[in-house]
Every structure is written in structure tokens, then in C-alpha cells.
């Protein structure tokens, strides 16, 4: 295993460029991060009935996620234990069983082997069926409708894994009626390393005014003055890095800001915000009405407000699939849900006006590391490090302003912890980064 202690330096602010390019580091990520961390699988609303299933990936492992007759959700590797063939080729559907196209082995909704053609005449009834169930995902748990899975039986509970990020996400997850994801997901590819878009969503308020200048001008909205960095005020937001590598930046009073026609959404927020305040308190009412750029470690990101929900699926060190859904509150009227979809598609869909700016940068940020000498260099995300600290009322490490790189550093500190191969218990026990400074 590669020693990663020199790859991330200065409390996460300096990264070795090889982590975006080298095949051996990528293989170690598949083992130490994607085979251990909780990974986003689905939202429960995508699997309303028993037998409903969808296929997705955990790292590079194909999995089936299925609603069981008892209402629980299970997941297992979408590969036949006989000769390895992919068993289910549909994106989603409803099934009683999954039958392999090669020899006809069939598996139940729970992944158990239920049918073996010619079993009596060829195996002489000697096959031990339980040994050939589809490989299960060790743990599948939900948090307020969001379903995650981990291959690591020793991983902490999903609630503990999300930690303080769950407290923050409650601002929009814990609303009356909850949320749902509208799909089917858009899918496209980017020739970039999977960490580059995670960084972009978790911490990069910096690029918005520059990379998205054209879109900000074309979409006439309250955010248009950001175009070309004409205006920035550090008091208009903040950034949070939570222990566990999750984080986000927020711009206050801006949930509906990017919507070309935001009146319907602003009315909705005005109507719901008092409920959130009453239920969760003042801070989270502010977060409910903020615009967030966020990532859940390792590879799930979202923009609350624009309400795009992203999964960045690694496909080698220099390639990913981008999956995009729209996040909405279940209780929103149909017309508002349609508007949320329209805005998401127009901004961060496959032909989104802002998506298009980002994809190009992410590819070029990765591709430049092809150069052997270039790759020996370092990258720097130290913005705001001298001012970040703890907050009297908010959990995690808080950075000043939405243009800040605090949560980028938090992501890389977690990355290094897991990549070291140490156990969850060891990581939890050891001292971790805690700047001795308070942010008001």
C-alpha cells in the first residue's frame, strides 16, 4: 500500500498532483475509500413498492438496490456468482427475481440463489445454494429518505458517518413531508478525476463569478452581479467543513437566486421558513433559505436551492460518469416541482448553462497531470485558512464567506485518513485538525 502521508500536506491545503492521475493511487482509493465509506445509492422515493429495483455503482462495483417484500431495502453486487456475468441490465424496474442471461441462474429480491437450471441432473442436488447468493452490500441504511450502502461491516452507522453534516442537511431534509429525487438521472461522462467535481461542489464559491460569468449574465437573477467578480461581500455567507470530509458553502437568502423565474419558489420558502424555524431553530431556518454548494464524502454532491443532486461515479483515474437528479420537497405543488426540474436542467443538466462551464475546467485540471514533470508538482487550496475556526453555535470548522476553501481541506484530510488504511476506530481516536480560533 502506498504511503499517503506526503500526498496531503498543511492540514489539507496542499495536494500532490499524482492523486489525480496515478493508477496505483486510484486502486488504493477503490479499496480504502469506495470499499469502506458509505456511498449514496438512491432515495427511497425511487423504490416505492416491493420488487422495485434500480442499478447503480459503488466505486466500480455494479450493484442492484431492491425494495424487499417486508419494506426494507437491500443491495448486492450485480454479477452472477457462477461465471461472473452481469445479471440485470435495466436501469430500474419491478421484478420478482433477477435471471442471468448466460446459464439462467435466478436470484431473489434479496440476492439469494433460487433457481439453478438442470440442478438435479447436473449438480446431483449437491450445490450449496447459500454459498452462491449474490455478494451482499454489508450494510444499507437510510437517513431521512436518502439510502446509502457500505461494503464494510465495521463501518460506523450511517448517522455517525454523516455526523454534523446530517445536522446541517436537516435544514431541508427534515421539512414536513420530506424530500424526493426526480429522475431518471441524466448521465454523461467527464474525462476527469472523480475528486475534481467533488471539490468544485464542496468548496468552490471562488469560481462562480469567473467560470460562470456568461451564464450569470444570461440568466437575469439576483446573482447576476457576481459575474466577473463585480461584487463580493464576505458577510453574505460562510463555509463549513464537518468532521468526516463532508462540507458546504452557503450564500444567505439565496435559495431561489439562480431561478430565472423564482417567484413561485420564493413564495414557497416564505411560507415554509417559519415551520423550519419553529421545528429546527433560527440557524437552520437561515440555511433553509440559503443556497448551498455541498458534497457528502466521498462522491455525492448537491446544490440546495438550484436543487441539483449529483453522483460522480469513478471509471478509472481520469474518467467519471456524472448522474444528475432534481431534489424537491414532496409537498411542493406540481407546478413548482416542474419549475425546479426546469431550472436544474437549464443550469446543471447535461446541456446546463453552468454545467458546461465546469466540465471543461474539470477535464483540463485532470489532463494536465499527464505530464511527468507537471505531476511532480503540488496544488494549493489554502484560501481562508488563516481565518477559519470553531463557531460558538455551529458544529464543524467554519470558514468566513462562501468564497473560501475550508471544506476542500476538510475533504482532503478525510481522504488521507481513510487512504492510510487505519481502522474506523483508530481514525476516530486519533487527534484531528482543530484550529484554535473562534469565528463569530
Amino acid at each position: 500500500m502506498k504511503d499517503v502521508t506526503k500526498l496531503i500536506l498543511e492540514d489539507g491545503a496542499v495536494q500532490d498532483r499524482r492523486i489525480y492521475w496515478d493508477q496505483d493511487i486510484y486502486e488504493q482509493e477503490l479499496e480504502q475509500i469506495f470499499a469502506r465509506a458509505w456511498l449514496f445509492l438512491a432515495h427511497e422515493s425511487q423504490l416505492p413498492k416491493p420488487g422495485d429495483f434500480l442499478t447503480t455503482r459503488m466505486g466500480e462495483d455494479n450493484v442492484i438496490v431492491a425494495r424487499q417484500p417486508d419494506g426494507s431495502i437491500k443491495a448486492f453486487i450485480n454479477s452472477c456468482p457462477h461465471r461472473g456475468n452481469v445479471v440485470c441490465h435495466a436501469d430500474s424496474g419491478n421484478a420478482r427475481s433477477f435471471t442471468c442471461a448466460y446459464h439462467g441462474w435466478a436470484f431473489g429480491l434479496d440476492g439469494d440463489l433460487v433457481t439453478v437450471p438442470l440442478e438435479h441432473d447436473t449438480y446431483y442436488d449437491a450445490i450449496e445454494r447459500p454459498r452462491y447468493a449474490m455478494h451482499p452490500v454489508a450494510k444499507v441504511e437510510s437517513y431521512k429518505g436518502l439510502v446509502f450502502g457500505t461494503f464494510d461491516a465495521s463501518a460506523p452507522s450511517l448517522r455517525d458517518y454523516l455526523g454534523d453534516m446530517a445536522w446541517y442537511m436537516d435544514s431541508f431534509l427534515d421539512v414536513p413531508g420530506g424530500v424526493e429525487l426526480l429522475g431518471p438521472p441524466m448521465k454523461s461522462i467527464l474525462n476527469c478525476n472523480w475528486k475534481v467535481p467533488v471539490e468544485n461542489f464542496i468548496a468552490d464559491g471562488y469560481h462562480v463569478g469567473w467560470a460562470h460569468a456568461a451564464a450569470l449574465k444570461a440568466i437575469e437573477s439576483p446573482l447576476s452581479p457576481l459575474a466577473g467578480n463585480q461584487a463580493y461581500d464576505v458577510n453574505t455567507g460562510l463555509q463549513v467543513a464537518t468532521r468526516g470530509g463532508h462540507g458546504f458553502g452557503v450564500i444567505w437568502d439565496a435559495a431561489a437566486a439562480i431561478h430565472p423565474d423564482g417567484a413561485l419558489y420564493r413564495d414557497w420558502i416564505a411560507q415554509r421558513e417559519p415551520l423550519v424555524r419553529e421545528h429546527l431553530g433560527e440557524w437552520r431556518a437561515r440555511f433553509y433559505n440559503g443556497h448551498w454548494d455541498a458534497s457528502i464524502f466521498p462522491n455525492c454532491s448537491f446544490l440546495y436551492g438550484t436543487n441539483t443532486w449529483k453522483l460522480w461515479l469513478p471509471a478509472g483515474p481520469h474518467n467519471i460518469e456524472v448522474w444528475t437528479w432534481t431534489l424537491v420537497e414532496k409537498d411542493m405543488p406540481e407546478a413548482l416541482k416542474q419549475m425546479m426540474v426546469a431550472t436544474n436542467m437549464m443550469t446543471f443538466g447535461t446541456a446546463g448553462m453552468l454545467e458546461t462551464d465546469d466540465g471543461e475546467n474539470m477535464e483540463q485540471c485532470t489532463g494536465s497531470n499527464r505530464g511527468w514533470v507537471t505531476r511532480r508538482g503540488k496544488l494549493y487550496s489554502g484560501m481562508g485558512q488563516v481565518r477559519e475556526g470553531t463557531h460558538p453555535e455551529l458544529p464543524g470548522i467554519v470558514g468566513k464567506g462562501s468564497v473560501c476553501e475550508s471544506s476542500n481541506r476538510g475533504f482532503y484530510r478525510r481522504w488521507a485518513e481513510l487512504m492510510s488504511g487505519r481502522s474506523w476506530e483508530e481514525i476516530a481516536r486519533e487527534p484531528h485538525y482543530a484550529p484554535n480560533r473562534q469565528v463569530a
Partner: protein
Amino acid sequence: MNAPTHVKTPANPRYVDRDTLFEVERFLIREARMLDEERFREWWHTQLTEDVHYVLPVREVRMRADKKPVGSNPGAYVFNDNYPMLDMRIRRLETGLVWMEDPQNYIRRFVSNVDAAWADVAGEVDAWSNFIVYRNRRQRDETVVWGTKQCRLRRVDGQWKLARRVILVDQRVVLDKNLYFFI
């Protein structure tokens, strides 16, 4: 805005006469050249009706036995645009601040398999065609997108205009970083 997720040949199409088919073909080919030459504003002004509906749905991969629609409505669209939304996309390109388009992309559209039938509405035709779009960028960044499209053309003041277009890209995973171009 609800929108179709598939295209379909009607049971008894009333195929158009040779002259009309020629006009439809010229419309699609000239439109493609106009877009290749980045004459987007001219395209918006002269080739589209003001009630245009420009659609590119997202379609799931499903088993044949699964009778649910392949896309949900209005769950996911790459394009589900009206006239002002197309204007907004073009205004973005016109700012001169789209770094991805500078230096210029080379996009080349190929149109084939053109056919047309009279629609139920007088003065309108449904036109079917297949397309391939090549995009070449920077030094050697090259992508290909292909599929089919169904267009509703309307004769306005003696000129054909696009009133509705449903584009199907035959890739579940779009094998490109985005589809920010008109097909």
C-alpha cells in the same frame, strides 16, 4: 412544461409531395449549416416559431416487458425549451465570456433519412431525420453524438419554420461532457 419522450411514425402517414419534401430537406440542411456557422441569433429570429418547443428527453434503459414509459414527465430533460429559454442559451454564447467556446469548437452536423408527412393541422408537416454531430475542440478532443429527430414544421408567410423538435440521442450515457449545442 410537459413534453414527449419518444417519436413515432403514425399508422397511416400522409406523405408529402416531392416539392414539399424537397423544401423540408432544404430547411433541415440549411438550418444545420446555419448552426455549423454559429449563426445562432439568425437561427432564433428566422427559423423558429415563437411557440417553438425544443425537446431532448432522458430515456432509461428498461426491459422490454416493462411497460412503464422510458422517461418520466417532467422528471428529466436535456432540453425542454421554449422561445425565451433558447434566447437565454444564445445570449450566454453572445457574452463572449464562455471560455469553453474560446478558442472555437468545430461542430459539424450531418442530416440524413429525411422524410415528411402532412400533420393534422393544415400547413404543418412532421419531418423525420437522423443526425450525426461531430465536435472537435482544442487539439484532439473529439466527440460524436447521433440519433433521430422529429420536427413539426409550419409554413409562416411562405416560409417553413420549426414549431417543435423532439431529439433522441441514442446513448444512455451521453459520451460527451455536455450537449450545449443545437441539433
